[in-house]
């Protein structure tokens, strides 16, 4: 399955705290307006390829105080139709993998609502490859087994543009769960 996605800006008005909802506006639209998502299922597991435009890559934040890396996440609901825009909800977790341009390995992520993301070591991931070329990032990896995806066949993506100092809830996201057809 390969799909071209029109991304939206994650709504800042619902972000936790009294700062981001007040000073950051999502009215300008997503920093990353489009992405392509390719998902394949085989006996080896699930294979993903995500690509998105990025005119000014940030691969490394080095010893800087104000730089943020490019990043992307592929996420799946633990139960069908767990809320995506709010990163799940209590009892309706979402989980997946986070890629950051300044790291060599993926991190696992799990959340039950905004501000609840837990990061950990990603297990069962093979063939991680990322490349920036001609204004576009492409990211590929395989996951040996993903029970939730086997059951729900739903996946979503989020993209953070480091040059725009995007992090946390400042991100571009698929407008909802994408139905995976194999």
């Amino acid at each position, binding site marked *: 399955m390969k799909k071209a996605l029109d991304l939206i800006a994650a709504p800042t008005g619902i*972000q*936790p*705290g*009294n*700062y*981001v909802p*007040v*000073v*950051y506006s999502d009215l300008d639209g997503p920093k990353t307006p489009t992405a392509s998502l390719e998902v394949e299922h085989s006996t080896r597991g699930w294979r993903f390829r995500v690509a998105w435009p990025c005119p000014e890559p940030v691969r490394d*934040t*080095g*010893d*800087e*105080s*104000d730089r943020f890396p490019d990043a992307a996440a592929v996420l799946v609901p633990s139960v069908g139709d767990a809320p995506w825009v709010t990163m799940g909800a209590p009892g309706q977790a979402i989980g997946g993998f986070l890629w950051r341009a300044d790291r060599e390995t993926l991190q696992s992520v799990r959340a039950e609502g*905004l*501000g*609840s*993301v837990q*990061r950990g070591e990603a297990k069962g991931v093979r063939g991680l490859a990322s490349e920036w070329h001609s204004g576009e990032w492409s990211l590929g990896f395989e996951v040996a087994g993903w029970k939730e995806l086997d059951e729900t066949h739903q996946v979503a993506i989020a993209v953070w543009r480091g040059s725009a*100092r995007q*992090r*946390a*809830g400042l991100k571009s996201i698929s407008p909802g769960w994408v139905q995976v057809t194999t």
Partner: protein
Amino acid sequence: MSDILESGSTQRQLAMVLDLNKCLGCQTCTVACKKLWNKDSGSDYAYWNSVETQPGRGYPAEWRETGGRDSEGAVKRGEIPNIDTGYGRAWNFNHKQTFESSGKPGAQKEWLRPDSNPKWGANWDEDRGAGEYPGSNHYFYLPRLCNHCTHAACLEACPRKSIYKREEDGIVLVDQDRCHGYRFCVEACPYKKVYFDYERQVANKCIFCLPRIEEGVPMACARQCPGRLRFVGYRDDPDGPIWKLVDQWKVALPLHPEYGLAPNVFYVPPMSPPQLDARGRPTGEPRIPLSYLESLFGDSVGGALETLVAEREKRKQGTPSELMDLLIAYDWNQSFALGPKDAEVSLG
């Protein structure tokens, strides 16, 4: 005393008063803090406690313009200071070359200098100040640290609830296990006293020397101050120095009260000698303009200065002044009131 602690705040609030009339600008507090708590290479540029010259751009540069509150106390978009132009990158010195060159007869002498080309740093504009020599030039030192605000902007900005305020003493802390390094706290703090550890990828800040406080020992910055300008205690302790200076005498004022965060670090504003006219005669106008002090400490600064001048005059006339005796810190034990376990301070 409970009305001192605003509704919704913690059970008690640890606080500090700094008498700016006594600050020498020696940076002993800065070094005491840095050596004790903040030696990680990822925050080598960061000073939880810093002493800056005012009027000046401060540390980080232009921190008043880059914070997350406007002059009416409304939340506004702050900035994360750049490590080169905002904080100033930590640099090393060419000690080896300098000492080697000085030991070789005939060799060209190396001057001691940074090994980089720094653009800014803590107290970069040292002793520059403002005004015209010799009639109105002036400066004073402003030690700054986290204000452990009652309504902390950093705490309210964190989407992960990684920053919290201790119920027992109101100390504002970062839970670094929860922190994901998003730096909204750095942006939002109008005092710019939350820092980012770029190696560990987490925020850090002054912890009010929490482990010392729990043992009844004052913060390192206060304990090591040669000028004895710092007072430590609880906001609601009527026998302690904080209540006396803030609430009884009303000579200790918060920095930028207009931000609306109810900071718990207070300052006794600096008195200054008079300006001189063209013929060198005192004009009666203080060298540090009242309007400038009001821009830092609010409208109450004039009243505080009047009280200080009046009490100083009483003391000069030989009349007892409880306020002057407290500020002079004849008895260091009176500077710190940390509860039943504060025996350590008797060593001073």
